[in-house]
């Protein structure tokens, strides 16, 4: 076991980033023109990085698997983005955002990175407004905020339920400006299938043109992975259908350590599944917990009547409802962090109180908020304060203006009106805190190879707070990487163009071609989805919201078997040299089948419960997570050694110098 060096600069926490920026080497503008950077991904992280690096003068080559950079999965983010602006004057500050993020992450993240994130958060909002991002505003024309889980201030900026879309279109527009200037070479519908390492440094990638099937070599002086998270290892998740771990996994196999793979976020408020054919799960933004109250019936007879359809939720009297979050966590109530809210929902459903046919749903109810807003509006507009219909109508209007698109999404999927009946929700896989290990510079264990956004592991510990992923993606891409990568590239000003005509590129290319050929020639008997669904079931049952030793051991052997079966019996129709969506999926599932095993192994070795990682053996009598700071106050980083089960463990010890490590309580 080796100890990893995070490269955190010396000095006071508050001054580290400033001092670091003052002391690094810079590349002069003329030299930047001779330096190429590859960015894989056009989400908030990759999009913002590509644009900024191009503005600085580097030649950027950017890749995404969709038909346009604007469609990266970040587009789907709903609720908002955090920033310590303290516009509401409610006591927010850089330190408080830092503190909330470390605490929310259950003391499993790196102090210096998180502080830097909090520090640059305010710049993000300024930058986005300057780009023309239409954030929500109040009647005075100033920016509005809302609250998210796990915090006691209002620091979340938003654009209705489409915050991710607006931020991504901002980054996309910044990219477009550089594409027009020729500073970004955009490769849409391309999938990175390997990283090329020359003399120990990342110097390029192998990508497949998804339309022609051609395998291409691309070189650069540095490679940035911004390919998002691996939640789709569960098959069903709130991620986009194409979200995948391939880029991250391929670099892992080439030497980049993979950190904390078992830290997954199961989001408490998603639309429950409806049948076997289900292809994905849809999130109902956490912002809804600002106004929605979560409950299940207190009495079993009501639950049964609900399932039989003889009783409606609205007919259950107030005193027969169990607002279990408010009951268990009076200080934070419905706004407890996600891991806590998800486990509480599972606890109630496991106890038999689930409100739909599958027994896997709880209510998210807006009636109190509708009444509260309605009364306010009636007063403001001088209408009759006893007119209940009017109150309801006006209240619904307010709720619509805040969450309209989410309510519409719900109605289209479930075919029920959420303004009249409470929503039904259940936890679903949403985000992966684990990812490629990076140091303070966001560089992986391979020199010249960087990882940003959800693809890295760095800022959220074992649980991410709502509205912090967008913040991290844009912080990494706009404000952090452009500095740190310059320090590295300053050594490359005399290198000159990197040739793709080398043995290293050739070898990588051949390996990729062999793998693809093997897949299409296999002519087995099961489709790719057959395997993906099986893997998903293993992951959900044994590596899901709660885990135990027996289950994890089973998961490891079952995934191994499934992987062997996949390579024997998978059927991939179509050819190599054409658009072949099954082939794309096959490659991704092959990687998930390896990652899943490492995931289970990581969960098995972490004998504690922290954040999204809940081990049944390590819980208090009341069912709260029991962390073990003496033994597990570290990051687990895994080095690839052939089989996932043989991965070698490395440790990065976490030091908390500016925060007192406490039991995380939201009571």
């Amino acid at each position: 076991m080796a100890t990893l060096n995070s490269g955190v600069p010396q000095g006071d926490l508050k001054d580290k980033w400033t001092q670091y920026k003052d002391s690094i080497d810079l590349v002069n503008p003329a030299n930047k023109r001779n330096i190429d950077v590859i960015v894989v991904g056009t989400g908030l992280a990759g999009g913002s990085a590509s644009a900024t690096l191009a503005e600085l003068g580097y030649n950027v080559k950017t890749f995404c698997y969709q038909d346009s950079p604007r469609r990266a999965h970040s587009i789907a983010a709903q609720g908002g983005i955090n920033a310590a602006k303290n516009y509401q004057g409610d006591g927010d500050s850089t330190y408080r955002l830092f503190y909330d993020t470390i605490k929310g992450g259950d003391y499993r993240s790196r102090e210096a990175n998180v502080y830097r994130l909090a520090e640059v958060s305010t710049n993000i909002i300024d930058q986005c407004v300057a780009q023309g991002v239409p954030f929500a505003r109040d009647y005075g024309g100033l920016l509005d905020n809302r609250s998210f889980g796990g915090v006691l201030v209002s620091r979340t900026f938003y654009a209705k339920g489409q915050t991710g879309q607006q931020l991504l279109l901002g980054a996309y527009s910044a990219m477009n400006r550089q594409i027009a200037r020729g500073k970004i070479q955009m490769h849409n519908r391309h999938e990175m299938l390997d990283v090329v390492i020359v003399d120990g440094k990342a110097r390029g990638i192998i990508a497949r043109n998804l339309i022609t099937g051609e395998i291409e070599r691309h070189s650069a002086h540095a490679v940035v992975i911004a390919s998002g998270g691996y939640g789709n290892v569960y098959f069903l998740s709130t991620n986009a259908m194409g979200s995948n771990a391939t880029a991250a996994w391929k670099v892992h196999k080439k030497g980049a350590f993979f950190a904390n793979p078992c830290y997954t976020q199961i989001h408490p408020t998603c639309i429950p599944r409806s049948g076997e054919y289900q292809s994905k799960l849809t999130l109902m933004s956490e912002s809804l917990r600002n106004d929605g109250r979560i409950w299940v019936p207190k009495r079993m007879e009501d639950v049964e009547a609900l399932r039989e359809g003889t009783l409606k939720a609205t007919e259950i009297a107030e005193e027969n409802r169990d607002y279990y979050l408010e009951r268990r966590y009076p200080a934070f109530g419905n706004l407890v962090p996600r891991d806590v809210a998800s486990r509480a929902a599972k606890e109630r459903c496991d106890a038999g109180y689930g409100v739909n046919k599958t027994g896997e749903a709880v209510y998210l109810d807006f009636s109190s908020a509708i009444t509260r807003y309605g009364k306010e509006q009636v007063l403001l507009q001088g209408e009759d304060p006893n007119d209940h219909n009017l109150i309801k109508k006006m209240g619904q209007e307010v709720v619509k203006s805040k969450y309209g698109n989410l309510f519409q999404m719900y109605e289209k999927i479930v075919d029920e009106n959420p303004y009249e009946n409470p929503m039904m929700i259940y936890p679903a896989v949403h985000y992966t805190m684990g990812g490629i290990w990076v140091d303070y510079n966001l560089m992986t264990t391979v020199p010249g190879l960087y990882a940003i956004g959800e693809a890295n592991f760095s800022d959220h510990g074992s649980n991410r707070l709502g509205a912090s992923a967008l913040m991290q993606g844009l912080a990494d891409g706009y404000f952090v990487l452009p500095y740190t990568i310059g320090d590295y590239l300053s050594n490359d000003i005399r290198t000159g163009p990197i040739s793709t005509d080398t043995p290293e590129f050739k070898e990588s290319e051949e390996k990729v071609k062999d793998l693809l050929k093997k897949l299409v020639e296999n002519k087995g008997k099961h489709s790719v989805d057959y395997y993906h669904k099986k893997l998903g079931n293993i992951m959900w049952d044994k590596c899901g919201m709660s885990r135990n030793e027996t289950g994890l051991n089973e998961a490891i052997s079952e995934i191994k078997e499934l992987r062997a079966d996949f390579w024997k019996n998978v059927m991939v129709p179509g050819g190599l040299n054409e658009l072949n969506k099954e082939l794309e999926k096959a490659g991704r599932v092959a990687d998930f089948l390896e990652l899943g095993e490492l995931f289970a192994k990581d969960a098995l070795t972490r004998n504690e419960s922290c954040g999204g990682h809940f081990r049944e053996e390590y819980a208090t009598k009341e069912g709260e997570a029991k962390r073990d700071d003496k033994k597990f106050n570290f990051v687990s980083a895994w080095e690839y050694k052939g089989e996932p089960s043989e991965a070698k463990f490395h440790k990065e010890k976490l030091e908390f110098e500016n925060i007192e490590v406490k039991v995380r309580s939201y009571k």
Partner: protein
Amino acid sequence: MNLTLKIWRQKSNTDKGSLETYPISDVSEDMSFLEMLDVLNEELIEKEIEPVAFDHDCREGICGMCSLYINGEAHGPDRRVTTCQLHMRKFNDGDTIFIEPFRANSFPVVKDLVVDRSSFDRIQQAGGYVSVNTSGNTQDANSIPIPKDDADTAFDAATCIGCGACVASCKNSSAMLFVSAKVSQFSLLPQGQVEAKERVINMVNKMDEEGFGNCTNTGACEVECPKGISLDNISRMNREFITANVKK
């Protein structure tokens, strides 16, 4: 329910393509349209027939990747939804459903139901941005208050997902709704005004160059637009375009 699907199959851009018939049974009302196609594809794979290629990603109506012309309507019969949000409860047992790609000269077919919409990206590259570098010292976000109405209208325009349904629905294959959405967003915000004139001219010119047709105010685009982008944006862009040309 049991359905008959008539689906456009086209091997590649150079292939001619034709409608093929596929029966499908036991379709649940709660399935999304794309889940129904997933089920069909699984059946085809089992029979060793190449599955139908179609674009999709988020499956929640926001990425703009899905398309499909279903029974003569972009994104199918439901209103204000994308194909991925369309559910089978909108159809009846025994229905025949025609599924074709979005058709327009500027959206060439890539394969089956997949089309190339990169012309949209090129229009955005011609001016769909505010020229501001990332410096970390742009002015404070609250230094210019923006009237809520303007911010909200700009937001409404900015919710365009770039799906291309407006083009596919228009008999002239005009991209006016799409282009005007971006032009409007920026023209309503102070940050966008500095470059407003060049922006509208460059984007409109690019749109013409890409071969999109003229707008003859039929309004089909607004009806089929899954995001409810309003025709007001087109009027706003026309005004901007005229003033920009006058002042040039």
